[in-house]
């Protein structure tokens, strides 16, 4: 019996030594060589090799990924028992930690995103009494407002009715961002190392960051912006001119038009999806053919000062474009900036351009505006 206890004590001692040494040793091993250690478990090899051909090639796995003892033990269990998922993907509970780590290097972009509407939390989206009292929540809401949430809507919110009061039932999710960085950016991707934004600015056309991609929660995959489709939309029977800027294909995934409703004139005439249907904001009228990102900042969607990119201060009418009666100046305006037309104000005919002397002078001195 004494001998048994002696062996048991030695075995326990070895186990503790292995656990402590193994944990710290493994941490050191995995952090070295930018993740080559992680790739030695062959199920991780694809993830590591892809990121090694991407801009984050010089970033170690654990600079982004959380690697607690519990995570390591979970990985070890999966490795030993061979219960490896078909696709190794981020779990929804791991997303906030990763997004926080994005901030370490991309402070400006993170702050900009945080200041904009796309940093909205699960609670703000799914426990909103104004929305929920009018429309029932459903799984498809998660397509754009919870791409990384792995369950269904009934796992997230209760009650599923229009009476409320609504609350987020998944622990720890209420204050999490519903649309994290990875909703629109693919980190593990094949591609060349990107340069700093300043040297990416192209004179030949829109510079498209290779990271831009839509995370499709059904497929649990990113689709690169360049592979996404830009729909052909109509204003009545007329096909609207739409910018083919691939960056805005990403916007269309969520700010998407609908097929005409059964019984509508558009459906009867087979005109196709109409501008402004669903959550579409395709510009028409004076802004027709302009890309979303010509006016909207990519991270906070702000349009502040964007008018000056194209307009001289005064319009051809002699009115400051930023003060015109549009939703740019006031959200309560009846003239949505996306669809405003000259004829909306000039209902009895559009007058000839009335350019004040000051604007003429400005036009003469503005590069590219003087003919």
């Amino acid at each position: 019996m004494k001998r048994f206890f002696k062996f048991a004590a030695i075995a326990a001692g070895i186990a503790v030594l292995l656990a402590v040494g193994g944990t710290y040793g493994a941490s050191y091993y995995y952090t070295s060589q930018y993740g080559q250690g992680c790739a030695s478990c062959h199920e991780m090899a694809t993830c590591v090799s892809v990121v090694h051909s991407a801009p984050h090639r010089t970033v170690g796995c654990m600079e982004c990924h959380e690697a607690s003892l519990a995570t390591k033990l979970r990985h070890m269990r999966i490795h030993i028992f061979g219960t490896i998922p078909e696709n190794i993907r981020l779990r929804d509970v791991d997303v906030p930690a990763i997004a926080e780590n994005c901030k370490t290097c991309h402070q400006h972009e993170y702050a900009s995103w945080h200041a904009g509407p796309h940093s909205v939390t699960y609670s703000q989206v799914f426990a909103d009494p104004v929305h929920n009292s009018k429309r029932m929540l459903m799984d498809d809401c998660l397509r754009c407002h919870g791409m990384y949430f792995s369950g269904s809507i009934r796992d997230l919110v209760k009650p599923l009715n229009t009476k409320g009061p609504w609350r987020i039932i998944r622990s720890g999710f209420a204050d999490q961002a519903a649309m994290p960085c990875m909703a629109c950016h693919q980190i593990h991707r094949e591609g060349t190392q990107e340069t700093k934004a300043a040297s990416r600015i192209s004179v030949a056309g829109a510079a498209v960051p290779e990271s831009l991609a839509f995370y499709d929660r059904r497929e649990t995959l990113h689709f690169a912006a360049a592979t996404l489709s830009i729909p052909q939309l109509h204003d009545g029977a007329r096909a609207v001119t739409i910018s083919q800027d691939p960056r805005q294909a990403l916007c269309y995934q969520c700010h998407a038009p609908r097929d005409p409703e059964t019984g509508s004139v558009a459906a009867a005439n087979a005109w196709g999806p109409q501008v402004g249907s669903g959550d579409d904001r395709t510009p028409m009228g004076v802004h027709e053919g302009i890309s979303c990102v010509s006016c909207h900042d990519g991270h906070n969607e702000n349009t502040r000062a964007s008018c000056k990119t194209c307009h001289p201060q005064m319009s051809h009418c002699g009115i400051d474009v930023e003060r015109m009666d549009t939703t740019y100046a006031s959200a309560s305006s009846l003239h949505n900036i996306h669809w405003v037309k000259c004829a909306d104000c000039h209902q009895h005919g559009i007058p000839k351009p009335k350019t004040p002397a000051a604007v003429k002078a400005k036009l003469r001195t503005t590069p590219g505006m003087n003919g």
Partner: protein
Amino acid sequence: MPSSKKPKRMTRRQFVAAGTMGCAALAVGCKEGNHGNWDFLNDAQARTLTAICDQIVPEDDFPSASQAGVLTYIDKQLARHYRRHRDIYRDGLAQAGAMSRERFGQEPAALAAPQMAELTSAIEKQNRKFFDLVRSHTFEGYYGAPRHGGNRNAVSWRMLGMAEPPVNGRAQYDLRKGSA
């Protein structure tokens, strides 16, 4: 009659040595399990299978089977749901390699397109079961859901004119009535 011999007990030294050797064997075993980027196939099998799959779906205006990730699909499935087909793949790929070396003196991956087409026809005749399996798995990988490893970037669906992910809005707001 009870034996007078006492059972031989492990000494402490033997116990520690056995434990150390066990750990070392585990570590070596883990290392030997490394298949590179594949779950089931080895690199040589993957090269042969690439050559066969690319005969079934060759590159034109759209990517070939291997470019669309069909190999990844087949490899993942052989490591999981299609374990029952492993022997057919092992034997079929070995046979394809042998036929190629015998006829052309080269591995299938090194053959020119006409030679590979000839080899693929020969495989179809001599090992119909293997060829039919590869063909149906190639189609599954090329036209199936991208989440399973094939149909990279939903390329075959776009070839068929289907937008993926679909641009599909909801009737949440009526923007024409007011704010941006």
